[in-house]
């Protein structure tokens, strides 16, 4: 039996970054909003208090803050000809769970995509000709431009108190910033964080090679900050427990530290935690959403009617909800038709580990923050001429090492035994003088015809729903890109004076056990044509106009940056369209 709740103006599925942003915007517009979150409420005092947050085993190794695979997981295969098998414990990415979503345990790396990233197919075709692109590559323009998103990037950066150095202020290139970034209307709200030894050494070597190094834009506070909503954050203490951990110090931008204290106090907002939305309900025409159905921890099913449904879950769960609700045409990779599940992407990450003379270098790798780092952007997007190289795409690279936590970060030179006295000695001798940036080369992954999401025919979640099936492999374009970038990256460590530089190229096949990033993208993409996109440029469903879908699931392909800045900018952009256009005249904002 389903219990019916009183109707609301808006129901939001998932209370992470996008859910919190959209809820705050729409409650400001006077709407009654309820947000339904699958996981628990999270706060520093209950979930990562300062006296026990710095626990590598509990949070990094045992994944305490993440979704538990027994709640739900995915199946995975490289090729459509294989049988997909379930991901039984997390590896290549870490799906979030609970209020705050990935915003709780991210590093805070807050980038803007390049202006050319948003018009990718047009841009690359104009510069290199259509035949330069692999025939099975399905990259698209987004339908929105950098110029349109700029004010929304700006809002998110000021909400979060991002620490950074501007590289392009209203078209004027600034010293010390990223000269390749799109024009920004004003500087970052906070100065860049201080940089530890190895990060400054990287910057010096990069500058010596003719690059323009700059501090990574960071959601870790370089100083105390009060955001435009009046919420206060404290300066980061460089504790070295950031990614995979919650910040006990209110120093990392998250929904908890920027929006929720204001949002929760509004009389027209309500949140339900530990409730999982199982379906978006539609009326008999299938063209209008009537609300959602969710199940609570007792197994009781509830219906929440609403005039507007806004899906704000993690990438794959957005797609799953659309597929399970029968909204939009599922993608069929045999024909290339259909849109739900199409253009699924991840990232192309690699690393370089380097070993220095221990009598001359002491790096103290444990002194770090999540989004600290010195980076270069010469090899991102289309910042360089790809014609001689035979691939497209790229990424930023940098000394972005976030920690010296010893279960994860005890690099030893190649050839060292994995156990025994020689291993123990090598761990001791290299800990202070080795560098392992982690996501040092942060490359793009473009979209392909045979990389997609659909529903698994065999495996089910605890509620009996089919798991989403991931079909993904690396393509030559990305592997070539990675080889080129990793070599460039290694040259910088050589110039830093490393005795040994080990290049860890990303190799195929795509491996679901090897962590890259949690930046899964696509599957419910935005675009200009309902034949090739699920959403219009305002993130509004082409099929169901009172349904909007936020998040990286809207990215037609992934760029060479961390996605959160763009995810948040799109949420503000969409919320603005709802406030200024949709509410006046509910219905499609664009006609196909």
């Amino acid at each position, binding site marked *: 039996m389903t219990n019916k709740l009183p109707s609301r103006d808006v129901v939001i599925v998932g209370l992470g970054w996008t859910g919190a942003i959209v809820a705050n915007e729409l409650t400001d517009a006077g709407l009654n909003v309820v947000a339904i979150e699958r996981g628990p409420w999270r706060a520093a005092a209950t979930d990562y208090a300062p006296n026990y947050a710095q626990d590598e085993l509990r949070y990094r190794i045992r994944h305490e803050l993440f979704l*538990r695979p*027994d709640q739900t997981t995915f199946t995975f295969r490289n090729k459509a000809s294989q049988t997909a098998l379930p991901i039984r*414990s997390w590896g290549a990415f870490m799906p979030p769970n609970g209020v705050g979503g990935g915003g709780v345990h991210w590093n805070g790396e807050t980038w803007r995509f390049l202006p050319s990233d948003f018009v990718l197919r047009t841009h690359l075709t104009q510069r290199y000709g259509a035949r330069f692109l692999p025939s099975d590559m399905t990259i698209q323009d987004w339908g929105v431009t950098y110029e349109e998103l700029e004010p929304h990037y700006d809002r998110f950066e000021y909400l979060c108190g991002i620490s950074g150095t501007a590289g392009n202020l209203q078209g004027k290139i600034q010293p010390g910033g990223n000269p390749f970034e799109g024009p920004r209307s004003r500087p970052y709200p906070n100065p860049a964080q201080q940089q530890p030894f190895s990060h400054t050494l990287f910057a010096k070597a990069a500058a010596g090679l003719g690059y323009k190094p700059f501090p990574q834009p960071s959601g870790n506070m370089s100083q105390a900050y009060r955001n435009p909503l009046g919420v206060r954050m404290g300066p980061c203490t460089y504790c070295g427990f950031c990614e995979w951990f919650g910040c006990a110090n209110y120093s990392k931008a998250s929904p908890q530290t920027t929006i929720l204290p204001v949002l929760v106090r509004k009389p027209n907002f*309500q949140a339900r935690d530990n409730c999982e939305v199982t379906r978006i309900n539609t009326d008999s025409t299938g063209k209008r959403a009537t609300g959602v159905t969710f199940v609570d*921890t007792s197994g*009781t099913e509830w219906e929440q009617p609403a005039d507007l449904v806004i899906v704000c879950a993690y990438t794959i769960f957005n797609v799953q909800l659309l597929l399970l609700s029968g909204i939009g045409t599922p993608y069929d990779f045999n024909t290339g038709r259909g849109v739900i599940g199409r253009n699924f992407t991840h990232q192309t990450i690699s690393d370089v580990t380097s070993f220095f003379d221990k009598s001359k270098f002491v790096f*103290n790798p*444990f002194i770090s923050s999540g989004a600290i780092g010195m980076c270069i952007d010469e090899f991102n997007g289309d910042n360089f001429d790809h014609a001689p190289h035979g691939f497209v795409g790229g990424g930023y690279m940098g000394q972005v090492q976030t920690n010296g936590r*010893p279960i994860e970060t005890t690099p030893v030179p190649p050839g060292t035994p994995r156990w025994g006295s020689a291993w123990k000695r090598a761990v001791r001798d290299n800990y*202070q003088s080795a560098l392992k940036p982690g996501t040092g080369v942060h490359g793009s992954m473009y979209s392909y015809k045979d990389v997609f999401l659909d529903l698994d025919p065999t495996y089910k979640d605890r509620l009996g729903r089919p798991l989403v099936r991931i079909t993904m492999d690396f393509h030559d374009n990305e592997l070539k890109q990675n080889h080129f970038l990793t070599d460039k990256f290694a040259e910088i460590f050589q110039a830093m004076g490393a005795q040994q530089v080990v290049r860890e190229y990303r190799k195929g096949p795509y491996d679901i056990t090897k962590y890259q990033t949690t930046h899964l993208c696509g599957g419910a993409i935005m675009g200009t044509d309902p034949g090739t996109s699920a959403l219009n440029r305002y993130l509004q469903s082409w099929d169901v106009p009172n349904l909007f879908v936020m998040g990286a699931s809207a990215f037609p392909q992934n760029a060479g940056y961390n996605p959160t800045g763009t995810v948040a900018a799109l949420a503000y952009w969409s919320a603005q369209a709802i406030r200024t256009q949709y509410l006046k005249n509910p219905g499609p904002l664009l006609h196909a």
Partner: protein
Amino acid sequence: MSGIRRRDVIAGSALLLVGSKLAQAEVIAGHLPWHPDAGAPPRPVEPGGWRFFTAAEVETMEALADRIIPPDPQTFGGKDAGCVLFVDRQLAGPYGHREGLYVSGPFQPGTQQQGPQSPQTPAQLYRTGLTALDQYCHSGKLPQRAGFAQLAAAQQDAVLGGLENGSVHFDAVDAQTFFEQVLKDLQQGFFADPLYGGNRDMCGWKMIGFPGARYDYTDWVSRHNERYPYPPVSIAGRPEWNR
């Protein structure tokens, strides 16, 4: 709207255990949730006795621990560092029976890229693997017929090398999978916070110069190429604080 209800518990009696915290569906409105004495600190292992391993298994595990992490004049080996106690408590807890992981069938072998697909829990793997290891050592394939713990160190290393490179096979369980599990767990015990039973006196951290659960390096971030001088701190404090 439906009125502000601070903690309107909508769930019935069934509770979902998330970590060490009881999670129950709630409605949050009007205030940030606040529960007195909130928090879920980790529970330090209770010393004394074994929760998972039998006495014979402890003997084998301690021998394994001291070959994987041998003692040296400055730093304990795996045995004295408490790595076996660490693994014992992990196997007796949620990790041992894969709590929270996806364990629904069908179980089918896949490619390496698809990740582990074994129906076996870590606890089962240890139980079977440790027996198989001793059977192998008694089987006459080695110069000496004895339990693993009784072999000479060089012989123990030879067996471990064979497990690692796949040249030693067990009937009951995949020998390489067993080795990888033991290697990972013992080394984690050497570096995890001492409250979990290993890394005794923070020996693993002292060995490399990791300061542990220190919270504030603000004064040190700009002191470049200078060794951080302070000793490590555990979540449970420092031994001398508790005396």
